[in-house]
């Protein structure tokens, strides 16, 4: 039964659903009860996935070509929730003949549904999400999580209800879209009518002429992986509490891929589309299925950048090992420092700060401020050998963190489009912006390449948004009549030429290259380093009360000795001390770490020219 189930679950999940549904109908008295629970579908699939090797066999949307995945099979998709559409009411189950049938987890309409005189139709609700591939996700994450899926190449068994040539149709369509978007009529031979019809429709749809980047709403632009353009997905989620999924969450969905030629054919009829666009505002009908697959989600799991790396069980084990052996943590820490110092041309102090910055995330939100994120500014002396330094730093970050993005600041970039997402009421979608990023993404803003120019209103607005994000970790989404504040958790690294700049960074380190140069990162170490970083970020920091005395005394001492001690400085020291502790893999603050932090701060302040930031 084991092998059979596994094939069934991946290749024919709807069959599993049906059988579970049938057993459920026997056990309930009235059909209305069927709406309230999922008949054990979710548990069943989860159990199945936990079994050895099954998870790896499920194909992933953005690492295997869409054409290779037949319809109505189980797939995986990892993405960030970019937009939430209205809840859909759909026909949940209906009586057909003798028994009840369900259309949960499908989009399509089975033929016997259309017959007039059907009875007892029940309406259920489901939630529609629009997810894009995680913006800024680095290549290595994709590799790690995708490589296991490749082994699960699906063969061509299809579900009987949809026409058999469906996969071929889609394949041809796939080929058409990959080749320069031309209507490739030569390919379509069998089932000419619907195929050609679809091609005609797709050629005539206007969205192709638009900038696809915007229409598909990728915050950071389109990217590709293994020569395939990354696709967003429309997710239909059942039976989940509304509060479980929030905007900008990174979630891994496992569900059933559906593709229904009947639906796609109808959705491009223009007249209906016009009326639809207002009354129904069904965005789904404007996104063709070949570009944006629809997945009916069976189970989902939230990911954070900290545990994205260790999604796979073997990686999880490795991570636990690293944490368990104290020597390994120290060793890895030193390796990271050496590597970073190599990138930074031997500046150890800056490397320390960079490491602490990479480990920072939001610890707590108070009423008016945020504790935890440490935004760093590295001041680079403007000289020819330093001109590539910002990009090298960004590259190092890219190799270490799961999600990062480098953004050189320029007038065109600022003036072009608003960075904060805004709601487009015409299309009833959330038009994305650069700053719609998942929690834990790292942003490098490069000011060294700025040139002279004039900012218009959009540019000024974007700068204000960026500043607000750095200070308060919130971004205002523009809903035309009112702004909606969304909280973010993005660490920002600024590289600039001067100590003073208009972006408010917490810590400003002047880069001083030293004579002794160490080498940059070694490829084979990177795997462990990534696990190390992910692991220590997750450590539950718990400050014992033993050190309170010392801390207080220090703070009092410092304020008495003059200088402008502000509340922010105190907070910064405490945060840095915390980061220092977890970077050593420990959970309790020790006096050495505190002293080290103070020392680092002193050195850093010394470096800053007197006029400083």
């Amino acid at each position: 039964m084991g092998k059979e189930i596994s094939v069934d679950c991946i290749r024919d999940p709807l069959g599993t659903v049906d059988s579970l549904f049938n057993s459920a109908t026997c056990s309930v008295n009235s059909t209305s009860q069927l709406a309230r629970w999922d008949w054990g579908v979710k548990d069943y699939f989860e159990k199945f996935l936990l079994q050895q090797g099954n998870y790896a066999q499920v194909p992933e949307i953005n690492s295997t070509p869409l054409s290779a995945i037949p319809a109505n099979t189980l797939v995986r998709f990892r993405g960030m929730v970019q937009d939430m559409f209205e809840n859909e009411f759909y026909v949940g189950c209906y009586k057909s003949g003798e028994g009840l049938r369900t259309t949960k987890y499908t989009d399509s309409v089975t033929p016997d549904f259309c017959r007039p005189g059907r009875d007892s139709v029940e309406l259920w609700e489901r939630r529609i999400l629009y997810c894009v591939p995680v913006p800024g996700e680095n290549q290595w994450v994709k590799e790690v999580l995708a490589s296991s899926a490749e082994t699960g190449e699906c063969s061509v068994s299809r579900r009987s209800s949809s026409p058999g040539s469906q996969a071929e149709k889609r394949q041809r369509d796939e080929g058409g879209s990959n080749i320069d978007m031309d209507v490739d009529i030569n390919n379509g031979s069998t089932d000419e009518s619907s195929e050609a019809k679809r091609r005609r429709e797709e050629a005539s749809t206007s969205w192709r002429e638009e900038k696809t980047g915007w229409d598909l709403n990728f915050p950071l632009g389109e990217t590709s992986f293994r020569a395939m353009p990354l696709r967003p997905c429309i997710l239909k989620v059942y039976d989940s509490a509304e509060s479980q999924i929030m905007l900008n969450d990174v979630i891994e969905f496992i569900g059933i891929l559906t593709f229904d030629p009947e639906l796609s054919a109808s959705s491009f009829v223009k007249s209906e589309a016009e009326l639809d666009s207002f009354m129904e505002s069904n965005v789904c009908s404007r996104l063709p299925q070949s570009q944006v697959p629809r997945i009916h989600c069976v189970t989902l799991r939230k990911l954070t950048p900290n545990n994205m790396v260790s999604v796979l069980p073997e990686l999880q084990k490795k991570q636990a090992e690293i944490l368990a052996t104290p020597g390994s943590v120290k060793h890895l820490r030193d390796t990271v420092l050496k590597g970073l110092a190599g990138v930074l041309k031997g500046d150890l102090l800056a490397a320390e700060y960079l490491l602490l910055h990479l480990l920072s995330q939001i610890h707590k939100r108070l009423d008016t401020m945020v504790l935890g994120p440490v935004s760093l500014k590295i001041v680079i002396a403007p000289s020819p050998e330093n001109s590539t330094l910002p990009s090298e730093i960004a590259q190092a970050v890219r190799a270490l963190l799961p999600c990062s993005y480098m953004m050189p600041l320029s007038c065109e970039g600022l003036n072009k489009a608003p960075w904060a997402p805004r709601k487009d009421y015409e299309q009833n979608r959330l038009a994305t912006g650069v700053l719609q990023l998942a929690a834990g993404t790292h942003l490098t803003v490069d000011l060294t390449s700025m040139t002279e120019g004039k900012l218009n209103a959009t540019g000024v607005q974007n700068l204000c948004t960026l500043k607000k994000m750095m200070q308060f970790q919130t971004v205002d989404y523009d809903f035309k009549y009112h702004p909606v504040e969304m909280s973010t958790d993005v660490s920002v690294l600024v590289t600039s030429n001067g100590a003073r700049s208009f972006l408010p960074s917490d810590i400003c380190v002047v880069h001083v290259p030293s004579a002794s140069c160490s080498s940059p990162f070694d490829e084979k170490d990177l795997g462990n380093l990534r696990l190390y970083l992910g692991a220590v970020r997750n450590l539950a920091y718990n400050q014992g009360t033993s050190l309170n005395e010392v801390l207080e005394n220090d703070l009092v001492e410092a304020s008495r000795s003059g200088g402008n001690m502000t509340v922010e400085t105190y907070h910064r020291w405490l945060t840095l001390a915390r980061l220092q502790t977890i970077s050593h893999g420990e959970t309790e603050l020790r006096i050495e770490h505190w002293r080290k932090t103070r020392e680092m701060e002193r050195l850093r302040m010394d470096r800053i020219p007197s006029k400083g930031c």
Partner: protein
Amino acid sequence: MEDPPPSPPHAISDGPSSPLSDAGEPTSSQGRRRRGESSERRRRSVSRASSQGNPSSPLDFGTPQGTPNYGGFNSNLGTPFTPRNRNTPLYNANRLSSGLRRRSRQPPISPGGSQAPSSDGGEPALGAQQLVWGTNICVEDVERAVERFIKYYREKPEDLEAKYMKLLEQIINEELITLNIDARDLWNSDEDLYVKMVRYPLEILAIFDIQIAKMEKPIADAINPTFDKHIQVRFHNLKESMHMRDLNPSDIEKMVSVKGMIIRCSAIIPEIKEALFKCLVCGHSPLPVPVERGLVDEPTRCPREECAARNSMSLIHNRCRFADKQLVRLQETPDAIPEGETPHTVSLCMYDTLVDAAKPGDRVEVTGIFRAMAVRLGPAQRTLKSLYRTYIDCLHLKKQDKSRMQAEDPFEKDKENDYFSPFPESNFTTEDSDAQVEKIRELSQLPDIYERLTRSLAPSIWELEDIKKGLLCQLFGGSAKKLQSGASFRGDINVLLVGDPGTSKSQLLQYVHKLAPRGIYTSGRGSSAVGLTAYVAKDPETKEMVLESGALVLSDRGICCIDEFDKMSDNARSMLHEVMEQQTVSVAKSGIIASLNARTSVLACANPSGSRYNPRLSVIDNIHLPPTLLSRFDLIYLVLDKPDEQNDRRLARHLVALHFLNPEVHVHEGLDLPTLTAYISYSRHHCHPKLSDEAAEDLINGYVAMRRKGNFPGSSKKVITATPRQLESIIRLSEALARMRLSDVVERRDAAEALRLMDVALQQSATDHATGTIDMDLITTGVSASERTRRSNLVSAIRNMIAEKLQAGSSSLRAPQLLEEMRKESTGDISLNDIRNALSTLAVEGYISIQGDTIRRV
């Protein structure tokens, strides 16, 4: 709305849509409206009994598979009740009666299934009782209940006339067509009927309509015989209002009420109701054909016997009857959006009088019937998608400009202005809001409510108790008064925070800005005068110049937080003069001359010139703000950073705790943020304290004492003396304090506390660092007390000396001489300047006269 032509009572459109073709589509709600004679009722019951078991009873499974008519969108999928029927006068009659008659035509034998779904609630007895489809609601009982309600319902027992009979008369007099029934009244009088109405709105509304029509006839005959409009019944103000997110499939076909904000309105769509045809051959026009479900039954043969031509009818579109329809999208109110989600929307269908009743951006409460309809895959296909579209059939629209907890505000001048209420609106049900109000009242009775409120304000900011108290007063605000003469006194309190950098001033500002969302946070440096008040912009849609509100106008009825106040340009600052006192902004530019309301409180934060506050100079010299502007601030706080070990230790402890402990530990016994905002909102709108006599006495005494201090000899020119403005400030403060306790009377302790707050605020800015004592004079006069005593001593010494040395009318004395003499006599260090000041004081007294350097005794 003009009357449609009365339809002939027996015109039966039996034509194309034969009953049998309807067999496939269960229509749950068709034909429930009944007008007309009771005989029809009996016929209906007959046909109902013969209904064939057809698809679903809608009640069990929620949805009929029916579509209403969407302009142009043909659907043949069985009809639910198209809402237009209700709104079109007299049209219902046609449709209904035609529907009825069609059914009644069928002999009981023929199944003609048509419109009877299998009824769940029991078979109707033939001829005796009529039941509503699919339920066991007896129609006659409901009719009687409705009649009882309308005829006899009185709001208060001592009313003479029934409320709705009075309304009916009024409507008939004024020739209106809508009767708005408050659903609460229905609930109060007949709960059962209310429940039925919410669950089966269409049927009950039909019954209401019929009853009203019956009842209006005698009244109309009596008052206004020409009245022949059909009065529509609209319900509003349902007992509970739902969140848009909670609309789920079980609410279909029920009456719901949702609140939201309108974001889009479509253009007006005309929907054809009656089609007029004309025969091309003979020119004969048969009677208008009612349009059902989007299908127009074109007669295939000309009805005139002489002609009888086939397929010769053509539609004359400008003699057809249309009704207005509009599609509107409603979005959740901003504060109902849960954290981390995008707002939900729902579509509305508005008909006839509701069209254009609201425009995008309005906050409304909508009462209507929630419906779902299936969609076809394509206009030419019969197959259905498994999706259903949902929308709300709008019955009644109410624009909201007040929050639920708001009482009538007599000074609320512009009702259409408010997008936001001053503090967050809550989507409560009545029970919830009652419970909340109870809780708030309980809280207000606590003896230490004042301290609690202070503790709960910005708990993460350390100390600064008195400043927090001042901010609390600002949040609560005094009461605005308007005299008969037209002068009005503002109720808003303005606060200025001055101090050294790094003392959490900006954090306080941020916190207050968060607490009072209808406020703007600007930085002085970045604001221009124009941006603060109002500016002229080009409207992208109409391409005209329109006035856009600036920061101060946008924070009308809120708090405007201005940071870096001293860095503001003088231009901008001069704007503030008017706003702070008159509470209006006058604009005269680009041909637009207007005076906008800006009833805001200003919370400003300034840094002293030079990086630290120089205690040796007076307040005015430290911050370069003109004293006129300073006097408009009710409270001026000085936040100094004094190195003090105890303080620092406590601060350090607080910070360390913030980082590592759970933040909730802090606010022990304090209110959390939502309660705080609810408390403030409630008290602002429900509590308008008045001064009691003793409190007034105390205030007057305090004010006089303050004045006396300012009136001192030797004071320099630039002083802040206590002006009547200060008295008003104290009054406002005491009112705010009384409001905190939800008391209607300002008591003595409030007055005392207000005086104390005023003192503290001034004291902080008036600490005399030289002597280490608190000297209020430093801010009011610019001169410290020690200095003052010195001067007064000098004056008396000089007076004595002049009394000795000079006689009236005799020779004069020269000032340097006097200086010598004084130096000899007294020990202190006297300068010529001091002598001159003292002499001028004496001259004012009239004791001497001075010319240049010579002193002459008078």
